[in-house]
């Protein structure tokens, strides 16, 4: 009984603040607070007519899609490779590949900017953001795929080879259909992380905006109530991607 109450309080603490932002995005009062005033879509209408919003949304979607595709590829290949190595080497490499996630994103981002701008003399921009996002999302793809491959029976591959399938055929016809859910799930998680990232994008993008940096701009400078609507768009995008991903990947810790 106490356990259930505790769980309910925790869920309220975890989800309450997010739900408040969503609620106020439909309130007509310019201030955050109760009463919200009559329900309205005014702030979404304002957003719809804001060209800055569309430009940043487009940039975010391009970055998230590219990140998802590339990170799923590099991460899946890495997971397949790790399965062929000894346990010690594999653990060491997994740890090394996960290191960028454990470092402060600020430091990771600044180091990349220093390399690109000073070391290579190249401009910042969307390609740099995508590569940086691949760096911090591929560890998640690797972890999800390793967990899935753990439950994959290698005997199925051997059976296919014994029946005359080439290694490629065995991979595409036997293994791929079985790990497809995890693959898509991992890609969606990568997309969600990419969409949500503000720190790395704000350094490596150079000019322009992603949805996150656009939101940040509004958060810092204005008391524009349409920020609740942008925040809601951002959270609905990332949370629904995660929800679908978790379902597909059936990932548990």
């Amino acid at each position, binding site marked *: 009984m106490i356990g259930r109450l505790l*769980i309910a309080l925790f869920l309220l603490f975890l989800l309450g603040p997010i739900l408040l932002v969503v609620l106020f995005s439909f309130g007509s009062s310019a201030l955050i607070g109760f009463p919200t005033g009559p329900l309205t879509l005014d702030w979404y209408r304002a957003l719809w007519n804001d060209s800055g919003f569309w430009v940043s949304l487009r940039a975010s979607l391009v970055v998230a899609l590219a990140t998802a595709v590339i990170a799923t590829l590099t991460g899946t290949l890495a997971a397949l490779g790790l399965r062929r190595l000894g346990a010690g080497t594999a653990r060491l490499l997994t740890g090394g590949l996960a290191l960028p996630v454990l470092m402060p994103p600020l430091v990771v981002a600044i180091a990349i900017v220093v390399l690109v701008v000073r070391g290579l003399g190249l401009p910042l921009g969307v390609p740099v953001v995508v590569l940086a996002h691949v760096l911090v999302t591929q560890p998640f793809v690797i972890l999800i795929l390793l967990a899935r491959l753990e439950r994959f029976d290698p005997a199925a591959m051997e059976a296919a080879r014994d029946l005359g399938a080439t290694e490629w055929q065995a991979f595409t016809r036997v293994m791929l259909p079985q790990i497809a859910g995890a693959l898509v799930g991992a890609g969606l998680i990568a997309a969600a992380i990419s969409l949500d990232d503000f720190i790395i994008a704000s350094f490596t993008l150079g000019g322009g905006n992603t949805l996150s940096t656009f939101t940040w701009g509004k958060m810092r400078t204005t008391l524009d109530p349409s920020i609740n609507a942008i925040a809601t768009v951002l959270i609905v995008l990332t949370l629904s991607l995660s929800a679908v991903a978790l379902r597909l990947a059936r990932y548990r*810790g």
Partner: protein
Amino acid sequence: MTERVGRAWLLLGPALAVLAALFALPAILLFAVSFWEVRSFRLSPALSLAAWAGIWRDYAGLAAYTVGIGLAVSALTTMLGLAFALAVRFAVRQGDRLMIAVLITLFGGYLVKIYAWKSILGADGLLNQALIALGLTGAPLQALIYSRGAVIVALVHFLLPFAILPLYAGLRNVSDTAIEAARDLGASRAAILWRVVLPQVRGGLFAAIAFTFLLAAGDYVTPMLLGGPGGTMLGQFVLLEFSTNFDWPAGAALSYALLGSCLAVLAVLAAVVFGAGRQP
């Protein structure tokens, strides 16, 4: 090298290339830059300790404060996360399903969560409205936002899923048999938690402490938005040195000082978590 192992490295190639080009190489260059010089806004390679001396002089106190905030947030988050994970593991049946609700907020809403706290704790925010409506205070409490407390609350909220996840994963592997055996032998609930359950989740416990500490100590967005002048953290000054002051050597040295102090603290924490309670 066997063909199997050779193939493995080939498969790992792209991921390791990304790691080398965008993490290892930049990290090495950033370390080198911390010894460079800036003269009239031009950065030039050198072997100078000026940046390191400067940050030791200017930022030692702030580094200690940042580590302190990180530790406070990590301790709070880990304890709360443990309480939640224990409740989900032992008090309800559909634990895995509940975890989805927690997991879903792990990958989304970083900025939105901070913004939500700004609107809850602000001078005309929800909490002040509630306090005034209840007659507990006449005028809005200004100190709710732009304070150390606001930064800690927002960081705990953001980091809680990061603590719950590894703790719950660890608790799922604790067998009920051992707990029942301890209970049959007359152990109290506290004794079962301390001597049976916790020793089995050391890995998850350390992961929770480490994740939350690293992410809290390295954050700069939360203190920037909720900390006010009294709640600044080291990350904000890394940003300041790089962008406003254009002092890349100082920013680079400060980045490494931040990393170094975090890793030193983690080493101590690892010794505590994996050393404590181990029977001789």
